[in-house]
């Protein structure tokens, strides 16, 4: 059975800059990654507001992030092949971007949501996104228009190693 991991952050102040990566996972050379879930929510504002969100790929130069080590979803599994890093380089993951990175971004999935309700992406089996081992780009969860309210955000993505 494939091993599942989550890269997430909680209760963080995110950047209001447009096109910022909030979660970014870049496959390494050892295994492909199948993305199964993404989510984003906030607890800092009680005002109804719409927010844009996107799943995008990005090639180098990658975003600068806070290093985040993937968490195991099955505690018996070994640690993920992906490791935490701030650079977004191959084989690494991070959250809460601080620098956009000049690399070209390609949107895979665009959406909008009300910040009071949060956003959850759960693809049907045929809609999962697979980033192959050795891919030139990583996949990230972005706020394309910038955050309308920045404090107390949580979010993440889960993936399976294949």
């Amino acid at each position, binding site marked *: 059975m494939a091993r*599942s991991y989550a890269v997430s952050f909680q209760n963080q102040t995110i950047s209001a800059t447009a096109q910022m990566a909030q979660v970014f996972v870049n496959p390494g050379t050892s295994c492909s990654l199948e993305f199964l879930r993404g989510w984003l929510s906030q607890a800092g504002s009680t005002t109804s507001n719409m927010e844009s969100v996107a799943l995008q790929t990005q090639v180098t130069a990658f975003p600068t992030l806070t290093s985040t080590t993937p968490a195991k*979803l099955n505690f018996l599994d070994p640690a993920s092949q992906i490791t935490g890093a701030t650079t977004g380089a191959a084989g690494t993951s991070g959250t809460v971007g601080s620098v956009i990175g000049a690399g070209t971004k390609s949107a895979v999935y665009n959406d909008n949501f009300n910040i009071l*309700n949060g*956003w959850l992406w759960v693809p049907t*089996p045929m809609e999962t996104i697979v980033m192959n081992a050795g891919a030139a780009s990583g996949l990230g969860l972005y706020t394309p228009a910038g955050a309308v309210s920045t404090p107390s955000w949580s979010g*993440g993505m*889960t993936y399976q190693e294949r």
Partner: protein
Amino acid sequence: MSWEIESQSEALRKLLPFVTPRKEQVHITESYISVPPALIITDEYNQVWTLGMSVAPQGKSPDGEFAFPILRNGFEVDCIASRLERRNGKVRAFTRDGWRTWSNRFNSFM
């Protein structure tokens, strides 16, 4: 020697803090909001509803969709569904057997 055993559900609530209620009621989800694409539904009792992380086996899922255990305040409520919806003040779940509605009286989906 002291033993500290952390259950998987406790670890899940640490990993995903949004599955538990906030300290005070700040928002009741409007009607016709569904999960997904919304992340959570908050009802008038400040119960937070969302879908869990473990994928249900195919025999328990609605055809063609991933299904997950339903979490209420971070705890599973013994129902597997692909969608949650708030309608007419009730929380409904789309299961393999169709739509089921949460009953606070019976503490289960009916």
